[in-house]
């Protein structure tokens, strides 16, 4: 599974960083950083959860 960010849409809400801190983090400025785009199997639910709760639909996953 791979996760992607639409950087035009992302506004740094940070809900993905709460859902999947192994994959997403906010930097000191509050901007999103994608820590890894290849999602290990054990993190796939967290990745999908992050996609669902993004308020601006900026995230996607592909298997």
């Amino acid at each position, binding site marked *: 599974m791979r996760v992607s960010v639409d950087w035009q849409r992302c*506004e*740094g*809400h*940070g*809900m993905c960083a*709460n*859902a999947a801190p192994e994959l997403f983090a*906010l930097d000191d*400025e*509050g*901007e*999103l950083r994608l820590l890894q785009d290849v999602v290990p199997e054990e993190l796939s*639910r*967290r990745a*999908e*959860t992050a*996609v*669902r*709760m993004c*308020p601006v*639909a900026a995230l996607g*996953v592909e298997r």
Partner: protein
Amino acid sequence: MKRIVIVGASLAGVTAADALRMQGHEGPITLLGEEPHAPYARPPLSKAVLAGREPPEAVMLPPLGDDVEVRVGARVAGLRLERRAVVLDGGEQVPFDGLVVATGARARSLARPGQRGEHLLRTLDDARALRDRLEGRPRVVVVGAGFLGMEVASTCRTLGLDVTVVDREPPLVRLLGDALARLVTAAAVDNGVRIEISRAGATLVGRDEIRGVELADGRVLDADLVVSAVGDLPNVEWLSGSGLAAAGGPLVVDRRCRVAPGVVAAGDVIAMRADDGTVGRTPHWASAVEQSHVAAAALLHGEAAAPLTPSPYFWTEQFGLEIKLCGRPPAAGSRPQVTDGSLAERRAVLQWIDDGRPVAAASVNHRMPVGKLKRLAAPAPAATAAIA
């Protein structure tokens, strides 16, 4: 706790299912949704979907994994708390060990019995029906100048329609404070919206088919299409026999989103009792997400779960303005500081100070990560520690 039933298949319910799994619940989870659709996001309904910029399917949330049973078109009729079962329309009983109430709210209606043609906007089907009507280029009157009413008016103007908005109060003042509300109102007027203030309320006119809105001064605004956007009502009627919620709701929860042993709740259906005893609703996306996480943790871990410290946050897009607001602007009269940009240019960062402490912050057409805006809105950490 073995079997968990979540009633309500919108953002709060879906997030609760995700959170239960993430926090280690391995037993069955059943998500019951009243609407015929799979779970979807509501914020685009009044904006991109209504404007026709996005197809209705674009709002569907990515589907839950197959370790959650999702049942759509399953309307709950009641709760048998002593038997630990939810009763569906038609009488089927769905047993549970733990229950998450996420039944949301429905739009308030102003139509009298027998009056036809009032449009509301809450569900995907509402949005489809309204969008279809807008294609006929009607003269529109929107009753209610809150976020939803103003967003609908804005979308109607982008479609070139004739729009009047009616409310008892000037638009958005209670939600955004004087200064920001005035800015939005000016943008609405610049965009060609007429705003009518009718302090004693307004009534829908028409014996059968609604054909306008009558103001308190007796004037009638003729309309081909009337949209009521006058708030929402928590969906608690199905709980009436259980003693959990008073008639008219909302469902009051503690700071861990608990209602009763083995019963938690989250989303638009709830009001949270704060430590000072006050009870408040925050029916917004971010609140639904944070409440669902706390509710899931409290259902699994009880008192050991961390209580929720609400951080109210919401956004709106209307009349060329993209506004994000953290915290609550203080009551009327308090002027925010402009920390960047300017109100005159309609591009600014605002901060409200009350009693020497920051209490709210907003960005207007100004890209700023939400975390940064929240820091502008919150007291310094030392002050927070002193309160706690």
